[in-house]
């Protein structure tokens, strides 16, 4: 069964801190790893995504680090702001299978 394990379940950081959310996967055929951000009452929205041919990708304050040998990837949020408070989901899929498998999510609270 395809699985993506996400940790921690919840995270509280102070403004300006660097929250880190980790995900691990089992299926070595996965080749697309997105992160989604979800605010209360809204649908998840794509934040950033990476493919396994690179070890890191940055978009603004958001960075994905990818470790293919360990089958792990993580999201770092630099200079976090209260507006970043949301639920974050990692996900994975492979090009031979059209579905996305999601982690269980991390509730992030950035205190002022």
């Amino acid at each position, binding site marked *: *069964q395809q699985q993506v394990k*996400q940790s921690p379940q919840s995270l509280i950081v102070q403004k300006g801190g660097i929250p880190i959310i980790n995900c691990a996967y089992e299926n070595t055929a996965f080749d*697309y790893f*997105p992160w*989604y951000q979800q605010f209360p*009452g*809204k*649908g*998840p*929205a*794509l934040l950033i*995504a990476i493919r396994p041919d690179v070890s890191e990708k940055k978009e603004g304050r958001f960075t994905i680090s990818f470790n293919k040998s360990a089958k792990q990837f993580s999201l770092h949020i630099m200079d976090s702001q209260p507006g970043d408070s949301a639920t974050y*989901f990692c996900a994975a*899929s492979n*090009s031979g299978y*059209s*579905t*996305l*498998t*999601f*982690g*269980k*999510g991390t509730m992030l609270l950035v205190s002022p």
Partner: protein
Amino acid sequence: DAGITQSPRHKVTETGTPVTLRCHQTENHRYMYWYRQDPGHGLRLIHYSYGVKDTDKGEVSDGYSVSRSKTEDFLLTLESATSSQTSVYFCAIRKDRAEAFFGQGTRLTVV
């Protein structure tokens, strides 16, 4: 919202009644998905479609059926609603095997 509309947005129904949720897209994307979101479980795939009349089961498909008679519409039916199906349901679309766009969700309560 990437041209996705879910309806209804909220629904309360009684146990044992049939319920149909609708997902409509204006993007002409091939792939459409139904997920449910529950505390502690994240997003779990119910059913998905890879074309008109082409559908397949996800990890939590029991008690649900789907239909896709047109590219733009993907319907999720609960034949006989149960309290365990109280959840928030999200539709998603995907043009290719990359970014997925989600709708705003339907909050379903089965009493």
